């Protein structure tokens, strides 16, 4: 029925989810996703924006291969997947450094050092996750996802429940990492600002069952998106969102 294996030598992420339903406790089938189809080229950053509870996390779980029960097919680029979950999901009984090394045993000291330096984790290497703030723990999760040198990076609202300046800093660090080593990236967020600043392509999702309402490319380079550009893009998208929902 579905084929979720990585296919061939393609570097494309090709997602065709025809339908994903959950059976509720009362036995009714409720659709969560309906006709979600898109393709991301190598190095492209796709951002999904939609109302909370619309099925974004379900979509990511299917794309990551954690959920195989759906109608449709997902072709992933060959190679490792790096994922940042909504919660950091670190191993509390291992240090920061071990958390990264256990997932990416092949990483050399220099690469790891550079990664920790970029994310401001150098002084926290020997700490346990329980000693970190949420912001720091999220950075470790980011470091872990990048350390595997992924072909596909999946980010599920990676900066929620962080205060604004910190979220902005982490977002810039993420942009820097993607700029340095291009990787096909899937970002799910309910923060339009975050999406506009990071994405090459932006997808608007409907409420449940989630469909893609609109897909819009953002042609400007990430590095040169000024505040005005970001503001005007946000305004355009917000207008479109309103007309689509009406």
């Amino acid at each position: 029925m579905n084929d979720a294996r990585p296919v061939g030598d393609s570097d494309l992420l090709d997602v065709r989810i025809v339908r994903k339903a959950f059976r509720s406790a009362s036995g009714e089938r409720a659709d969560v996703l309906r006709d979600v189809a898109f393709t991301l080229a190598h190095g492209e950053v796709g951002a999904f924006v939609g109302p909370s509870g619309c099925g974004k996390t379900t979509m990511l779980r299917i794309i990551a291969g954690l959920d195989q029960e759906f109608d449709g097919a997902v072709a992933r680029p060959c190679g490792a997947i790096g994922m940042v979950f909504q919660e950091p999901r670190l191993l509390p009984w291992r240090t920061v450094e071990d958390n990264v090394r256990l997932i990416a045993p092949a990483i050399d000291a220099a690469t790891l050092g550079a990664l920790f330096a970029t994310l401001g984790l150098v002084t926290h290497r020997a700490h346990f996750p329980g000693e970190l703030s949420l912001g720091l723990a999220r950075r470790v999760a980011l470091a872990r996802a990048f350390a595997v040198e992924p072909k596909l990076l999946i980010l599920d609202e990676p900066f929620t429940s962080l205060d604004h300046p910190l979220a902005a800093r982490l977002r810039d660090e993420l942009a820097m990492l993607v700029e340095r080593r291009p990787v096909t990236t899937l970002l799910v967020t309910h923060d339009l600002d975050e999406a506009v600043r990071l994405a090459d392509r932006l997808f608007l999702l409907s409420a449940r069952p989630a469909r893609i309402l609109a897909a819009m490319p953002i042609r400007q380079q990430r590095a040169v998106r000024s505040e005005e550009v970001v503001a005007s893009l946000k305004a355009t998208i917000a207008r479109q969102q309103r007309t689509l929902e009406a």
Partner: protein
Amino acid sequence: MLRLLSLALFFAAWLIGSTLAGPQMLPGPAAVAQAILAEARSGALFLNLGATLARVALAFALAMTLGTALGILMGRAPAADRLGDPWLLILLNLPALVVVVLAYIWGGLTETAAIAAVAVNKLPNTVVTVREGARALDPTLDEMARVFAMPRWRAFRHVVLPQLFPYLAAAARSGLSLVWKIVLVVELLGRPNGVGFEIGIAFQLFDVTRILAYALSFTAVVLAIETFLVQPLERRASRWRLRSA
């Protein structure tokens, strides 16, 4: 400090009890210490302690390994749980003495039968405890390991085992004391050496001094294992907890 005080209180109570009940019924600490020394000098004490300790170690290791494997299986696979549960209930409620006697009848008065009988007594206990732990495993960490394609063994060692550790420690704690008590019964009924065998002889002679000498010596050994092996191991494995805010 409080521990020492409590220990002193124990000896004081023992002394008072011994003067009240008379040295026949309850010999004082000095007499027991003398008996221990005499047994130690003849070498019998170490021979018997060693034999018992070896049986405890073997039966304990057997029950823990097998019990952990079964516990994880039953905690993770509902079919295995439904299949194994009635067996578990039977084993849990089977008196230790029945298992021991049957093992000796079926297996003869051999070392294998003795150790197997003790292990079978401890096994269901381990299974139940570890099963509880396997049911409580965090599915979000499991997903993390799957997305990042962690090899099975590494995921088991670094993701699953640390989560099971408190349950394994609880099983080991209660296991050690349970196993050594049953080993004594096994020795009493069908072994030619060991602490249980010595206590059996002393019982026939109503030699309370000797009973206490052996019982206390072995208790000291178990206490030493607990203080110098189990507790440091636990501290090491849970240091991430101690330091967390």
